[in-house]
């Protein structure tokens, strides 16, 4: 089953194309990561799917609805975690979650949701006394209280310390285990690699590649680095065995050493940086 389907999506602001015709699908129960630097079009894409922005062209379907029409039935089935985490400072987390619970036809129990995001101890403290990380968790609670089938998370861990990030990852894995579909944007590669079943890389408003983290890395060449006459050399090859044999054979024949030789598979980070680099060549 398809939770999200996007075909030929386009969006411009004042004549500048932020999204230039992208296609992708997200299956129900999948965690899909939209990866890209700032300004690549991640937030624009997600906000069109969430119903915040109108698209200029293309077909978009979210849980079978056109998000541009902002139907209540769709809003009842999605949860949204925005980038900003401002909340009502004088309410308590329990009160805030209860306010939102009232909006949904089949809301989860307030206590359960507060517990789930780890705010049980702070349930009755004023929101203004919470730490940044705790506010983000309350944010997540608001996205979860309606028991959504699909959750959008726009840079859910930006600004988190490593420990808070690990905790957030655990929570997202937990949601996946419950069968929720999750679309998250991030500019952290490790986050995409850790969480996403599939990743789409956005560059300048175009989707340059879509695949599982393993596929993206697997399609990449092996990298051989060494020094020749003191200069660093980097080679990428599809046939590392043959190329290494040639290099070492030549070096042996000439009686010299391949200084600092290193052979490694590309990481998702290399793939990502390569994809973004092509930008400069384009």
């Amino acid at each position, binding site marked *: 089953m398809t939770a999200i389907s996007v075909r030929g999506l386009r969006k411009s602001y004042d004549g500048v194309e932020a999204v230039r015709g992208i296609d992708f699908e997200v299956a129900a129960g999948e965690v899909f990561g939209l990866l890209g630097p700032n300004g690549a079009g991640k937030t624009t894409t997600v906000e069109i799917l*969430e*119903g915040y922005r109108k698209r200029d062209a293309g077909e978009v379907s979210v849980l079978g609805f056109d998000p541009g029409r902002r139907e209540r039935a769709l*809003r009842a089935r999605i949860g949204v975690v925005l980038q*900003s985490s401002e909340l009502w*400072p*004088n309410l308590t987390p329990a*009160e805030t979650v209860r*306010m939102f619970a009232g909006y949904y036809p089949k809301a989860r129990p307030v206590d359960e949701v507060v517990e789930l995001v780890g705010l049980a101890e702070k349930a009755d403290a004023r929101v203004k006394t919470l730490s940044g990380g705790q506010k983000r968790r309350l944010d997540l609670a608001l996205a979860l209280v309606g028991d959504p089938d699909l959750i959008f998370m726009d840079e859910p861990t930006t600004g988190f310390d490593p420990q808070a990030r690990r905790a957030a990852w655990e929570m997202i894995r937990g949601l996946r285990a419950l069968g929720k579909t999750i679309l998250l944007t991030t500019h952290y590669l490790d986050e995409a690699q850790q969480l996403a079943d599939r990743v789409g890389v956005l560059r300048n408003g175009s989707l340059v590649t879509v695949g599982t983290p393993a596929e993206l890395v697997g399609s990449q060449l092996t990298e051989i680095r060494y020094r020749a006459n003191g200069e660093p050399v980097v080679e990428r090859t599809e046939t590392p065995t043959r190329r290494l044999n040639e290099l070492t054979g030549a070096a042996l024949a000439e009686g010299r050493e391949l200084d600092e030789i290193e052979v490694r598979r590309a990481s998702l980070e290399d793939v990502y940086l390569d994809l973004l680099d092509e930008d400069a060549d384009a």
Partner: protein
Amino acid sequence: MRLFLHQLRSEQRIFWRNRESAVFVFLFPVLLFLLLGTVYSGHYRGRPVTDYLTVGLIAYGVANTTFGGLAITVVIRRELGLLKRILSTPLPAPTYLIALVCSLLLAFVLQAIAIVVLGKTLYDAHLPSDRLSLVLAYALGALCFAGMGLGVASLIRSSEGASAVVNVIILPMTFLSGGFGPTRDYPQVLNAVADVLPLTYLVDLVTGIVFDGKAIWDQRSAVAVLAAWGVAGVLVALWRFDWQPRER
């Protein structure tokens, strides 16, 4: 209706918990009434001037609460992204706005009651016999000023200036329109300016009821001008109202 009541309850909690709204929006007109009632003495058209101040300060309360309080709340929530957050939920946008407006109307009603009760007990102020007209006049004023509040909120760009802009509108307007005291001795120029201000028509309406014994339906032109201002505010809001932050 269930959603509306749910949201109204939440809005009331948010209003009274927030020191700024509880003090500046609710308490300030009441305090100003006590202050002016203490310093002004004498008579206005044969009746104690505190009778005038009672109706005038309630008119100020209309502007301060249903107009100013509403506009500032909307701008701050918009810029903090709270309106945007609400928009992604199944709560219908009109239900949300109506609940917010009603929450401030409720605060105004309590404020007006406080002013009347204090006026009676401290200054022996008298209310007119035609209380229905008076209540209807304030209700009309409150609705029209709420419409203008939504309109002005749509025009204010940032939350930083919201409070200042709103008070720069409200305080001189109340002064010129006679909310803080009779304007018959003001220079001609100021009275000419006052003639275009909506609060002038609310003050005229309520003083007409209290001092001239007119009913609200005897003062159709004041009612029409007020309503026109309210409709204009709503039209501006329909044209420019934003649910998403303007400043990024």
